[in-house]
């Protein structure tokens, strides 16, 4: 049976098409889901894509959090179902308190759009299972509000409970800061204790087909559907 994926489209989402395609290429049955939906329509995994939901008004993710579909997303998450938030989706998950912490304006005050190197810190999640633990992958990211913050106790708990999924690491030969936004402890992505709710800032769907130069991003989607990757594990 193929995995069913729902990609939510909020007003202002803008990465839903490539996210949908990446899920389909990985072998999932994937459909867009309107933010006004009150059910996930039987989806096994729900993805909150990147973009600027509700224009980032108030705070990024603050209003999307109250979209009708989010009640179903919360119930799905609490029942152990897979939920992945990419970039703006990560912001929404934090605002919804499905993940701890918050994402603030980048420390450098600028929108930063460039590839980053991130280390896979945890493979027992819904979307990193096909990576080798500790693998470093280079994936695009593009955001103005990606500085992960949380109080020290929360950060310590995230480390202790192995909830850091992706961490920015130095890029060999690069003068640019490896941490593009000033995130606490170089955190690029986290998950809930069980690993079924994951959020991160980088955009794997933007590097998921050979035409774009690399398919490493596809490994996240292949992990999501439990499918074997086309190549060797990263």
């Amino acid at each position, binding site marked *: 049976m193929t995995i069913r994926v729902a990609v939510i489209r909020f007003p202002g989402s803008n990465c839903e098409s490539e996210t949908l395609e990446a899920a389909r290429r990985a072998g999932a049955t994937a459909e867009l889901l309107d933010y006004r939906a009150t059910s996930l329509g039987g989806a096994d995994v729900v993805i909150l894509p990147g973009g600027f939901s509700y224009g980032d008004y*108030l*705070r990024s993710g*603050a*209003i999307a959090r*109250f979209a009708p579909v989010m009640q179903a997303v919360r119930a799905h998450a609490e029942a152990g179902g897979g939920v992945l938030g990419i970039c703006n989706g990560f912001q929404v998950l*934090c*605002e919804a308190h499905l993940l*701890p*912490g*918050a994402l*603030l*304006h*980048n*420390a*450098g*005050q600028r929108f930063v759009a460039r590839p980053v190197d991130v280390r896979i810190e945890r493979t027992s999640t819904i979307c990193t299972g096909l990576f080798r633990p500790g693998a470093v992958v280079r994936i695009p990211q593009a955001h103005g509000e990606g*500085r992960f*913050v*949380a*109080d020290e106790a929360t950060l310590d708990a995230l480390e202790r409970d192995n909830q850091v999924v992706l961490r920015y690491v130095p890029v060999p030969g690069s003068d640019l800061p490896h941490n593009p936004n*000033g995130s606490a402890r170089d955190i690029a992505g986290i998950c809930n204790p069980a690993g079924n709710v994951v959020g991160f800032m980088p955009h794997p769907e933007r590097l998921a087909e050979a035409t774009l130069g690399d398919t490493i991003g596809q490994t996240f989607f292949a992990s999501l559907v439990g499918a074997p990757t086309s190549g060797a594990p990263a």
Partner: protein
Amino acid sequence: MTFRVHVRVVPRPGLLDPQGQAVAHALAALGFPGVGEVRVGRAIELELEAEDRATAEAAATAMCERLLANPVTEDFTVAVEG
């Protein structure tokens, strides 16, 4: 009664505020002396129908806790006019 409510939301002390820093630098560049730390937040004004002032204040506080401010990173104040 209709009350006018002023909500003020500011980044919590101790959190880096890049907007505030940028404003501080700009003020210094313009030659304004004596400017120390600057923090940039939001002011939200809303009209609120409520029985009395205390009810309006309680409602506005609940709005802040649920939506207008992020409890992880921001502090807020509520002032009810009228």
